[in-house]
């Protein structure tokens, strides 16, 4: 109970911070739009190939844009060492982590929704919106995996001299199973490939549970000095 209350307090603060500072989500939205434009040049997307290319393009955008956004939310904690006000409070390191995961999850999902809509509009691919109910479990499990690892690593990387630049190097290799799962299962759903996305969803769920438990154990070590 207290755990959730504390996590939600941190989530609320991050939403407020986003409304006031517009540092993370708005940045992600612009970047994702920019990516869509660049992919259009790079891949020459048309009505024939859009369905085959969609899942690859989308998950590249999700992973790169997402890690940038998560880096920003961590920077806002590191600025002025603001996170110390949480450290010196009755809030446990675990609920601190949970709160940051929730806010990163929320911002990532909003970014993904935005990206999907713009993808549908720009490439005349309304079908993807219609298939949202089937895609939802993929998006949720994948994004949770991103948020779990990204929250831990972005907080860790922003303490280094290289700051956010270091983040993709640490983050992308570790989330490879999520990217693989996301791309493959979305591809299976969009193109009606045989087998169904079941096994991929399982892999992503295992990944999420594994990293949820490990990160809860490890987060306290990166908020100590």
């Amino acid at each position, binding site marked *: 109970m207290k755990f959730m209350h504390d996590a939600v307090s941190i989530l609320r603060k991050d939403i407020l911070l986003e409304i006031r500072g517009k540092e993370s989500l708005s940045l992600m939205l612009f970047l994702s739009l920019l990516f869509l434009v660049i992919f259009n040049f790079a891949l020459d997307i048309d009505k024939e190939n859009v369905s085959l290319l969609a899942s690859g393009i989308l998950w590249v955008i999700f992973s790169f844009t997402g890690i940038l956004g998560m880096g920003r939310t961590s920077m806002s904690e590191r600025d002025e060492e603001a996170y110390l006000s949480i450290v010196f409070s009755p809030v446990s390191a675990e609920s601190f982590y949970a709160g940051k995961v929730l806010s990163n999850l929320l911002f990532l999902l909003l970014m993904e929704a935005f990206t999907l809509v713009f993808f549908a509009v720009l490439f005349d691919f309304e079908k993807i919106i219609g298939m949202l109910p089937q895609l939802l479990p993929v998006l949720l499990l994948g994004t949770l995996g991103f948020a779990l690892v990204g929250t831990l690593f972005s907080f*860790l990387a922003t303490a280094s001299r290289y700051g956010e630049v*270091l983040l993709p*190097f640490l983050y992308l*290799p570790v989330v490879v199973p999520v990217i*693989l799962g996301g791309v493959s299962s979305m591809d299976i759903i969009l193109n009606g490939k045989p087998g169904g996305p079941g096994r991929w969803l399982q892999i992503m769920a*295992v*990944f999420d549970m594994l990293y949820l438990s490990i990160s809860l154990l*490890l987060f306290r070590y*990166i908020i100590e000095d």
Partner: protein
Amino acid sequence: MKTNRIIIFLFLSLLILMPLDFFLIFRVAPTERVMGDVQRIFYLHISLAMAAFLSLTVVFISSIIFLWKKDLKWDTAASVSAEIGVLFATLVLITGSLWARPIWNVWWTWDPRLLTVLILWFIYIGYFLLRGGIADRFRKAQYSAVIGIIGYVDIPVVRYATKWWKSIHPLLTKQGGGLDPVMKKVMFFSMATFFVLTVFLFLFRFRLARMEERLLILKKRMED
């Protein structure tokens, strides 16, 4: 003193073991029927992979002990082991590539096992990038221990995911009967040799790193 003696002993035994291993691989082991001589690289490839995996296991365990005991010597153990692990992983990738060229007619193949090693390789490169970016010794140790743990538990998941994604690895068998008994013995010998090599490199490098640290402390004291 005692470690010194062990290091010297290991070094001397490697002087015998390494040439013997190569002799066994190139002269004693029978030529594989389908792949021919190229298959011999397999003995090195697998032994290197075993050595890399062993080193990264040491990183994982040392990282856990560091977070628990907060003694910097465990961090030194983890970081030198990661160095050795990255070195071996690089060699795994190179030998894998050399092997793939004549067998599959490509320099690189997205084989799940090779892919897992490549991703591991990236993770531990990140480990060193992070270490380079943090000046505070203790914080450096703490944070890289987190990476050392996270990276290691990723191995089985990556392995499984890539396997599900694609599998084209050849089975090195004669009509499904397993390895030829001589091949098996050579393989075992090669793995044992590389095990000794790993232990030697670890102890040697660990000792050097500890000495470097002590030297730095002494230097600082002189300046003060």
